[in-house]
Every structure is written in structure tokens, then in C-alpha cells.
């Protein structure tokens, strides 16, 4: 089973990412394939198109967003979800950091928030501060070594998903 980092620990990952292309077009038999049972992550397009089937099946549901997606695309349905994943096509594309904060701080998402795609050690700390709590590292990353990144900077000045009060106010206390 593939490994991920969740809450700063390396754990097995039981989620299965659905192939939107395969599940949105009819197969050779002329029928759109059935969505498998179990814990599945649906790209947001698939979620939109086949939501009732997804929710009507046994197993938990996650939705995968891209950096350019609006959180409103899933906000009304968050109660039905068990995982939200955000894909980073390139580590240098920082849109997912804002998306995470919006999901956590504006839309009240309390469940698992996963960073996936081009995710590596040196992004983990800021990703976590923006609200991600699980990380599917890209191929070739040493997950054990990457855990050290969370402790690299002990404090933060700003308000963020993990720091509801800014440092300047905590200093006063």
C-alpha cells in the first residue's frame, strides 16, 4: 500500500484516485463504466458529473481540486466528503496554498486536506501552515527525511490555518 504523511506521521494510504477520463466517457461497450466501491477520490469534474452515483455507493468520497479551481465548487457539499485533495502541477504554482486557507478558514473544512502532485520536502512546512494535514509526496522523495521539514521554523508571525492568532497578539500574552 502506498505511503503518505498524515499529521506528521508516515501511514498507509487506502484512497484510490479515480480516472476521470475513463469514467466520464462511454467505453467500448457503449456504457459509461460503473464507479468502483471503496474509498475513492474523484477529480472535481467527475464529482460534478456523477455525484449521485458517487454518494450512492458503499465507501467514502474525496474530491480532487486543481490550483485554479474555486472552493465554491465543493463548498456546499463538504458534509458529504471525507477528503479534499489539492493537486500541485508544479511546486512553484502557489495557488493551492490560498485554496487550502479558504477551505479551512472560510468554508470550515475540518476533514483531511491533502496536498498531492509536485509536493516535496521543502514545501511541507508552509503547506501545513495553510491547512494541509496530509501529503502525498512525489516520486523519489524520502518521506522519513521529509518529516524534519515540519520543525524547521518554530514560530510564525502571521495568522494562518494553524495559527488563529498572529504572533504579535500571542507575544502580548
Amino acid at each position, binding site marked *: 500500500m502506498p505511503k503518505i504523511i498524515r499529521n506528521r506521521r508516515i501511514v498507509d494510504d487506502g484512497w484510490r484516485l479515480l480516472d476521470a477520463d475513463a469514467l466520464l466517457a462511454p467505453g467500448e461497450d457503449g456504457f459509461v463504466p460503473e464507479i468502483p466501491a471503496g474509498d475513492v477520490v474523484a477529480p472535481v469534474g467527475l464529482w460534478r458529473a456523477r455525484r449521485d452515483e458517487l454518494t450512492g455507493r458503499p465507501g467514502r468520497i474525496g474530491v480532487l481540486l486543481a490550483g485554479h479551481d474555486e472552493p465554491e465548487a465543493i463548498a456546499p457539499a463538504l458534509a458529504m466528503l471525507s477528503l479534499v485533495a489539492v493537486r500541485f502541477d508544479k511546486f*512553484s*504554482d502557489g495557488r493551492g496554498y490560498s485554496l487550502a486557507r479558504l477551505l479551512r478558514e472560510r468554508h470550515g473544512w475540518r476533514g483531511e486536506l491533502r496536498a498531492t502532485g509536485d509536493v516535496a520536502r*521543502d514545501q511541507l*512546512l*508552509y503547506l501545513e501552515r495553510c491547512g494541509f494535514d496530509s501529503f502525498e509526496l512525489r516520486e523519489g522523495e524520502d518521506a522519513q527525511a521529509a518529516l524534519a521539514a515540519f520543525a*524547521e521554523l518554530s514560530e510564525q508571525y502571521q495568522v*494562518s490555518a494553524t495559527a488563529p492568532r498572529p504572533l504579535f497578539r500571542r507575544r502580548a500574552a
Partner: protein
Amino acid sequence: MYRYDPIDQRLVDARVAQFRDQTRRYLAGELEEEEFKALRLRNGLYLQRHAPMLRVAIPYGLLSSLQLRKLAHVARRYDRGYGHFSTRQNVQFNWPRLEDVPDILAELATVQMHAIQTSGNTIRNITCDHFAGVAPDEVVDPLVWCELLRQWSTFHPEFAYLPRKFKIAVSGSPADRAASLVHDIGLAALMGTDPDSKESGSVPGFRVAAGGGLGRTPIVGHVIREFLPWRHLLSYLEAILRVYNRYGRRDSLHKARLKILVKARGPEAFAREVEAEWSHLRNGPATLTQQDVQRIEARFSKPGTDPDLTAEHAEFTLKKMRSVPGFAAWERRNVHPHRLPGYAVVTLSLKKTGVPPGDVTAGQMEAIADLAERYSFGELRVTHEQNLVFADVARGDLPALWQALRAQGLATPNIGLLTNIISCPGGDFCSLANARSIPVAESIQRRFEDLDYLFDIGELDLNISGCMNACGHHHVGHIGILGVDKNGSEFYQLEIGGSQGARAALGRVLGPALRAAEVPDAIERLIEVYLEQRDSEAERFVDVVRRIGSEPFRERVYAKDHPESADRRRRLAVA
């Protein structure tokens, strides 16, 4: 200046350890080139023409004698004995070794300095008016707000991978000496009313301009909010940055700055988008309170607050000194009024002919550190015009300070004049440059060496950039010079009519680019037209350009049959 508390210090120390490990992993082959690039840039490290270039942050331009001595030590031990002050109030070292950079950063951390976010697609060093807190025309002292912004922007987790770099400048006076309108965000601190506040009367706040910038698409920023009460500073900026981070273009390096987004949306629509985002953040946890601000304020040292009782005697000495050759000229150009009687503000010119603009040797740094201790409470500032400032000098000390600065070659009386040239390092150092800047600056300085002539020409900003990235701010020079590459040769394009400050304007290209050897003549011709056309000495070069347009200047510069042409050819031949 602001003094770190233990948390500030821990963070800077932790950053050094983090970068040391990243450098180790890179050198061990565990970190890809592209990824290390993103990491080293946010620690101020470029790989340049000859060697790495390390850009050290000088937050909003404030520097102590202790810190300057450390910079001198770094220059001597890890570099070639000098440093370069940049237009972003930072200091750059051009010759460190990559392997040494973690050690350099560790040394800097011992004096509360760092290179955090001096490059990369991050919020960069906050810049400020170099006369902040001492200028008589100041409405609001911007320094405490700069420090709040420094803390807020440092390691901001959401805005660490922006579409492109992001520059914020803060000014507290109507003159806008921070060139705030050519920054991604320009904040003009002023007094106003906060409709939601219990505070009676007017409160400090900011006029917010967004989407300004130089570079290859120069744009003067648009005011998107006339008055932002101080309490909302951080939450409102967070809203701007979030809109930019989410919607700024990421498909093209050259279209990724905030100015392109503001232009595409239209300033009004962009402002509405920011307000909509802000409506969620307003009055949230990032809202500032009096205590927050006072706590930061209390960590600022406060030099120059004792009224000088010997002021009368000082004026008597100064009067006598004015007959000493050189002193009066220096006092006229390099000494500026202070808000307190008995004090003066002094600019140390880093624009002596023959020295690259902004360059200072380790020996000079140490001498300056000593002088700052003796004459200005151990503090100094870096200006975006690449000079240094002693902000709190007792007027009675001016003669002694002048003599000491002269001995160091730092008393050239040219502040505000043509030879106070802003120049990027250019093709001699920078791998982005299309042409060299420093030799052109020097050739112009040599042409205008005559002080009487220079003073007669009066106020004139001449800025040089070696490529269209415009680090030398050529767009906002009264005369701007841009180095361009034409089939592998260096050429220089002239612009006139630009200006910084509250009336920020972009210069317009005069005509075809010139060869380096032709530039001093062209400048001389521009000056001739100006001197012929000005209605009085009070009318500056840029005022004449505004009044009569650029055509008479263009005609003169490109005239083939100009009486001076023959003489000019002769001189070129000699050169």
C-alpha cells in the same frame, strides 16, 4: 531602529540552519537544480556572471553601526572587500562562494540581519522613505508600519510561491521619497477618519496604490483605496495578495506581475475584487490593536529626540564655515532639514566619479560605522538612490562630519544633481544585463565634473539600467538611459520626462539608441536645450520637458549639422 526580541532572533537563526541543510542537500545531489534555485533565491542568492551574488536585506533601509561593521567583515572575509548598495535599500555581495553562504548568513544573524526573501517570487524587502521619522514634511512616521509589514511578510506561508516577485513601499510624506507609485503596492501614510473607530478625530492610515512597477512594462500604480485605517493594514494587504496569488498570470514570466493583473481587470474592477475578498478578512484576527502597534514601537530605538541646546552656537560656527571652500556646496546639496531644531539630516554620496554608484569598500564601511556612532546615534539609512544617510546629526557637528566624510570620499556635493546617478551593476556583473551601466555612468560624471556647471543645471535625476528589467529605475529618471543589445553590440536608449515621487511619471523614448561613446554628448545637448529654454533657475529640467515637450530635445540630440558636431567627432576620435 527595531531591535529583535528572542522570537525574531530564533526565526532568523532557524532560517540559517534550514538553508545550511538545503545547501548541503544540493551539493550532495539530493536536491534538483530548479528546486534549489527557488530555495536559494528566497535566501537572496543568485548565480551570476562571475560568481554567486548574495543580496542581504536591509529592512526599510535602516542599518546600525554594528551591522555595517559586520557587512565590512563579510566583504573582506568572503568577498573582494566591497559591497554594493542597491535601489531596493539592500546590499549585494558579488563574489561569495556558494559553500560559504550558510556561514555568511550565520554571521549576519548575529547582528539581526538576514537575506530572507530578497529574491524569488515572494514578498520582498519592504522599502521606505529614507528620511522617515525625521523629515519636516512628514505626516505619519512610516517606520513602525514597515516593521509590522516586515514581520507579516516574513515566511508568509500562503504567499511563498507567488506568480512573481512582489514589492511594497511605504511613504509618510506628500513628497513620496519612497517612489511608492512604482511598486506592486505603494502605501502613502496619512491622517484620516475611520468611520468604524471609537477613536475621535483623525487616525493614521494609508492611501493604497496597486499595480505600479518598472521593468519591461512600466506602469504608475493606481489608487485602489483612498484611506485604509491603520487597524486594517495587514488584513487588507492579505486580500490584495490573495487575489494576486490566485488570479495573477502564471503562464508567462513577463506577464506575471501584479501590474498586468490590475491592467487586465481594470483598476476599479480589481479594487472591487480586493474589497470583496477583504470583506471576509476585515475585523478578523489580523486586525491590529493599539497594544500591538505600541509593542513594536517600544522596540525601536529613538535617536535624536533631545533638543540641542547649543543650536545657537552651531549656527554661528556654520556661518563661518561657509567661507571654507567646498563646505557651502556640500551643505547646500547633502544636508537636509530635520524636524527637530538643532539637528540636520546628512546624505553620504556614494556617487563619487570613478566609483561604481552604490559601491562601498570594507574600509569605508568601517569608517562610516565609526562616524555614525560619533555623529548620528550609531544608525544610518540606505536610500533607493544608492546613497547613505545619517538621520540625526547635531548641526554643530556638521563641519567635523564634513571633513571626516571628505577624507573618505563620501562628501561629493551632488545629491539631487545630475551626477548623483542611479545605476544598476549592469553587464560588468549581472547576467541579465544587455549592456554595461557603470562605465556609462562614469563617462557622464566625467563630462559634468565642473561643480559650478553642475550646480547651475540644478536638480536632475539621471538613472541608468543595463536592461529592461529596470533595476536602475531609468523610467523615472528625468533623464533615463537603458542599455540595449543590437546584434551583439551595446547601445543606449535615452528617455526624458520621467519622475519619481508624488508626481510619478514615466519617461518617453527620445529616439534611436546611441553608442556608449555618444552618450555624454547627447546628455550635454539635452542640458544645452534645457538651459536655453528654462524661464528661471527654479524651473528644473523635467519641468521644461513637461512644458515644451520632447521634440526640441530630440532635434538637438540627433542633429547632424549641429555646430558642436565637428568638435564632438574630434573628441570621439581622441577617445
